[in-house]
């Protein structure tokens, strides 16, 4: 670890009491600060704020399942593209790309949302599954396209 990085990590984990006692941040040489930090007991070094830990755990718990991640991203995407008419711009949105990056696990949720909320998931479904279950002449006929995807999903027992 480079000295500068080490000093930064000390800033994160070094107990505030010790910092005050040793006047840690006011020493002249970063190298000297690093040496002092190395002399500390491990228990003193690794002091992480418990509120930060619990906040991180809460975020992780919410995002633990693909379904939760999908719903969060889908809501954020919907809010961002509400005024957009370009289907290209909708599918190129960063949140939409994140949904595609969830892979096959998100396909049942996409199909369910397509059926329930009629949101624009055709590019995501096509990109993840690499198939196009509707007739190319039906492009633009949203009812037929949705029906084709739902029928495919039922046959594959995804919904």
């Amino acid at each position, binding site marked *: 670890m480079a000295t500068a990085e080490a000093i930064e990590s000390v800033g994160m984990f070094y107990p505030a009491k010790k910092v005050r006692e040793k006047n840690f941040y006011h020493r002249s040489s970063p190298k000297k600060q690093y040496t002092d930090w190395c002399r500390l007991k491990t228990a003193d070094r690794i002091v992480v704020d418990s509120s930060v830990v619990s906040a991180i755990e809460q975020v992780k718990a919410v995002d633990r399942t693909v379904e939760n991640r999908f719903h969060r991203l889908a809501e954020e995407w*919907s809010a*961002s*593209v*509400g*005024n*957009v*008419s*370009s*289907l*290209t*711009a*909708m599918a190129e949105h960063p949140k939409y790309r994140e949904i595609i990056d969830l892979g096959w696990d998100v396909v049942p949720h996409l199909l369910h949302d*397509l059926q329930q*909320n*009629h*949101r*624009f998931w*055709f*590019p995501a479904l096509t990109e993840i599954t690499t198939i*196009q279950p509707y007739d*190319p002449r039906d*492009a*633009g*006929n*949203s*009812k037929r*396209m*949705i029906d084709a995807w739902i029928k495919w999903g039922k046959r594959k027992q995804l919904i």
Partner: protein
Amino acid sequence: MPALLHLEIGFPKLAAAGYEKTSEATGPALAPGSYNCIAWAAEDTHHGFWWPNQYGYWPFWIKREVTIPCFVKTFHSLGYRICGHSRRQVLFHKVVLYAIHKSHNPMPVPTSLAGFTEWQPTHMARQLPDGSWTSKCGEKEDIAHFTLDALESYGPVHGARDEYGCPVIYMRRFVVVTVIVRFGQFLHRIYEVISDNN
């Protein structure tokens, strides 16, 4: 009229330019009865979301590609011809195409179609008989806006949430042609309803 804050946040000039809500929001892109600005400009809301990629509706006689020339060609086939300005003209109906440069920055508008290679079409508006403009903003409400620059927007870097760019192409159609095209669209709709039922 209550302010449409979601539109005013997306388009910083909208509130100052003035606008009126003319319909309720239609909902998500694929919801029954939903349509976008291109369908609204073409007066063909029956077909929902018009877009020249593999997922939207586009007239079958025009090759699908998301470029300015493709939009111009399509509206040319609906009887519109390119004209030089947005002012109201007696006996003509007008539409305007918005586009944004790929850099997402305000750029000088090219003077010929060949110069639009770096531009992406984003939105269309249609002129109303009183000279104001009507727009459908994505899945949101239809609005009548009094100026075209009301919807100018270049994304978060330029203080807007949306990225419509600016008006780049003006097209006009003689009123008699409008009547003929509307009748053709009506027949097309009937044909589709009958073929759907079969």
